[in-house]
């Protein structure tokens, strides 16, 4: 990771899904200070409601969510044609290999563990956006 923050401000919109208000605030601050637009949801159901109205460029989600966990949410999102290729980054406190495997099986593109480092989070989101753009799907 290069950690070259604030050198290439983005205009992408990131949906942050986390039931912890403090984590949402920290992630939002990290992304906003780099120029990303951020919308947030506190639950899996809330995220689906947001996705019905808005199309983010990247989705960043926790695993432990109320009502619908991150793996389930990811599968539901991937079934929707509009979001089958949208980059999904999982940000979770579960760092076991089996958890990561479950995440990738559900359709996530990158798996980060908490606590997060701001530079790593930003670089990962940027990498996913770049890969998405390069794939020609965007």
């Amino acid at each position: 990771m290069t950690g070259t923050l604030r050198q290439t401000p983005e205009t992408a919109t990131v949906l942050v899904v986390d039931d912890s208000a403090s984590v949402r605030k920290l992630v939002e601050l990290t992304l906003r200070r780099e120029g990303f637009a951020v919308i947030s949801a506190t639950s899996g159901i809330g995220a689906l409601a947001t996705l019905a109205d808005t199309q983010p460029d990247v989705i960043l989600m926790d695993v432990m969510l109320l009502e619908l966990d991150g793996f389930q949410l990811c599968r539901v999102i991937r079934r929707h044609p509009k979001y089958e290729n949208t980059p999904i980054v999982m940000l979770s406190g579960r760092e076991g290999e089996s958890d990561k495997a479950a995440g990738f099986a559900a359709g996530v593109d990158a798996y980060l563990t908490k606590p997060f480092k701001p530079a790593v989070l930003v670089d990962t989101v940027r990498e996913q956006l770049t890969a998405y753009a390069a794939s020609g799907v965007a």
Partner: protein
Amino acid sequence: MAELAAAYAGNALCSRAPITLPEPMANRAQSVARSVVLRWLRGVAERDQDGYAVLAGNGRTVLVLYAAQQAAGAAVTRGQGVASAVEALATLHAAEGSDLFVMTYPLGDDVAHALSGLFARPAIRELCDDPGPQLKQILADRLDQCFSGAVAVRAAGLAWAVLLLRDGEVIGCYGSDDARLKPTIEDASALFYLDEVEVAVYPARAQPELAAVLRQGDRRGEVGERNASVEATELGMIALLSALESRLTNAQRFGEGRPEQLALAVAESYDEALLLTGVGRSLLLSDRVGHPLLEAHWDAEAGRVDTQRLLETLRMASISDAWLAAAEALIVALELAVEQQLTWVSLVDESSSNALQEALVELLAQARGLIRTWRAERDSGAGGLPALPRTDALALSGS
């Protein structure tokens, strides 16, 4: 008119408050670490341009007026006085003690400049026994002279008013009836009809020596360096609070050793908060927390709690309640340490500072919520310590 021979006693409009300024709505109310207070004041003056700050702490209240981004007046309005305004400002950060509680008040263009004269001896002080014509004459003279400054009128009782002028034009008035600044001189006009009033004329004045104190209070971190330093602190704070969130979640899942894990979690975050000072700043000294457990493990030389020694003591005691008490005290120490960092961040990025502050408040509420819950479990005799809801859920429910 009779010239008063009374010795100068500041702007004696109100004996209990030598300097009385207009009272607009405050635009800031917060605590500021003494070590950064001059730098903070400079940032406020640059942002607000004209206004004043009231700084209180350790039994002393200091008033600092800034006009056109420069310090234009300073005075101790409560507590032990100092020899000069420069000293009042210069000693703000030098004195030992807790954070200062600060409120700031914005003022309109030229108002602060007109008020600056109130911080010095009046140029004229007269007793008017026929206030109507005499006051009018004094004001007419000021208008003719294109006077800028303040004219204070005080009646024998408690009634008083201050008229502010810029280049011979009245730009505002406030008084004992209403301390808010108004563009008319109605507040003063009632005094014109009394039998006797005292009038004092305070020309506006620049105070280069005072402005220099604010400019030179701390030369560390001028624009480029400061921004890089603050940015590093901001990123460090995000990582620190993210780590605290993970530690709290883990402590909650830890089973019987949860109180110990919680104390360790907070202690680690406290140590990290103090380490964040290494980016172009002097060492951040932790505030003392008046808790016997922390006092007994206070490292006076380093100016901080010696967490390693504290944790060793707790491990020897191996008492669950002691771990909880330590966690509770360390939460306060952590809060103070982080707030010092946030004060630093707020110098250049108030919105980031606010977001971090909100995250901090939520995380500490989670930590305190865990302590309350575990104590309640202990008191109710729930030996098995049943599984608790997630810390996140606690925060969402507002507990």
